[in-house]
């Protein structure tokens, strides 16, 4: 006979007080930034919090799904990315065409250093298993590899911007982009072609798109469109990280006048202004904080012990983190600024970035076990 103890089989009570506290902290942070810097900047932090909550809460990523496609021929995460980009395209390109003075796309030129940068970024993000947004999300939710990679990522972003002009002078085309409704149709056709290629390459049992990823893709699209409407520019990650290091370096007395990028009047002004008035900084802070709140919301998520890695893996983490930042600046963005925002606002460089970074990812997936992150195959 099976007996049941008192309270057995009954789910533990939900920690309502903790949930209310987390929501209160999120709202308080937005209120404080609004009061200190202005309402637009408070909104940008709220949008960033939304990004972090969706990315961590619904497990939406970029590096992981590409790895799944490469290793297991599972296209679900990639399809979700394409769906999200397509939804942003539908609104962003017509909006930018109607309000060209108030909204700008993530347009950038294609060049030798841009392609090389995207390839290296793709490889490095697979080594640490975290892309631009993923590194922020993972650090906020307690991943030690991402926490170690993050300062190197930021330093690499600063250094990449420092040398950016030297690299672009090696050979760069003029900015090529599509615009308006016709541009949106061309972009949607391109995204559909990629989705079909992924379907053909996928294992039959993996040809499905979970509802969780559909919800995440659509919510992310909404937040990305809000980012464009509020800030006047698309969602980005890497620029803000480099700006943090530029501010710290300047505060410590470093002279950045030898850099064409950091010595322009616009850059000097941004370094002098508060990071609470920089859009990419605010969304970055929001992503980290949003992921932190979600990790605390989930029961037992943060009590997990960290896996032990050898010294080679930690050195690789630092090196890959730096390379991610440096290469993302040469590539005019990471998976967010170039791939997600570049394609959705019609820039050709977003498409070139996608191809180069995916090829780089194939290399990165192979490098991970060699560098001590997992058991060798």
């Amino acid at each position, binding site marked *: 006979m099976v007996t049941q103890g008192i309270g057995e089989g009954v789910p533990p009570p939900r920690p309502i007080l903790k949930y209310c506290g987390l929501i209160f902290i999120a709202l308080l942070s937005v209120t404080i930034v*609004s*009061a*200190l810097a*202005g*309402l*637009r900047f408070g909104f940008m932090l709220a949008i960033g919090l939304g990004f972090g909550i969706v990315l961590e809460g619904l497990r939406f990523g970029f590096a992981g799904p590409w790895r799944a496609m490469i290793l297991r021929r599972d296209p679900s995460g990639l399809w979700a990315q394409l769906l999200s980009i397509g939804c942003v395209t539908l609104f962003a390109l017509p*909006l930018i065409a109607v*309000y060209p*003075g*108030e*909204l*700008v796309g*993530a347009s950038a030129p294609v060049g030798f250093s841009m392609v090389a940068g995207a390839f290296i970024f793709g490889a490095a993000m697979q080594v640490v298993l975290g892309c631009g947004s993923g590194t922020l999300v993972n*650090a*906020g939710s*307690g*991943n*030690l590899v991402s926490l170690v990679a993050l300062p190197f990522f930021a330093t690499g972003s600063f250094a990449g911007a420092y040398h*950016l*002009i030297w690299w672009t002078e090696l050979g760069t085309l003029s900015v090529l982009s599509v615009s308006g409704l016709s541009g949106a149709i061309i972009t949607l056709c391109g995204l559909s072609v990629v989705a079909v290629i992924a379907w053909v390459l996928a294992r039959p049992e993996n040809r499905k798109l979970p509802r969780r990823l559909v919800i995440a893709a659509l919510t992310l699209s909404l937040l990305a469109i809000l980012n464009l*409407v*509020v*800030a*006047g*520019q*698309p969602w*980005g990650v890497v*620029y*803000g990280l480099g*700006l*943090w290091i530029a*501010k710290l370096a300047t505060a410590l007395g470093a002279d950045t006048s030898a850099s064409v990028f950091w010595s*322009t009047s616009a*850059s000097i002004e*941004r370094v002098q202004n*508060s*990071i*609470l*008035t*920089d*859009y*990419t900084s605010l969304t970055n*802070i929001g992503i*980290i*904080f949003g992921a*932190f709140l979600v990790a605390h919301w989930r029961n037992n*998520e*943060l*009590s*997990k*012990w*960290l896996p032990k890695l050898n010294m080679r893996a930690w050195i690789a983490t630092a090196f890959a983190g730096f390379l991610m930042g440096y290469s993302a600046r040469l590539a*005019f*963005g990471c998976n*967010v*600024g170039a791939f997600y*925002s*570049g394609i959705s606002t019609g*820039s050709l*460089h977003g498409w070139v970035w996608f191809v180069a970074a995916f090829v780089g990812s194939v290399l990165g997936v192979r490098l991970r076990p060699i560098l001590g992150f997992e058991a060798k195959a």
Partner: protein
Amino acid sequence: MNRSTVALITILTLLGLVSLDLVLSPPNPFHAPPVLSLGSGLTPVGGFCGLLPN
């Protein structure tokens, strides 16, 4: 070390960075732009990843 400690270190570092920034470059909410860029009539001046100086 567990994930909780790492997450806490991340948030404390971030708070430290923002606090230092507030001391070094305090923002002025009275100089803030309109809430939305769309419809403001103002050109966006924020930095972003595709930014290339002339």
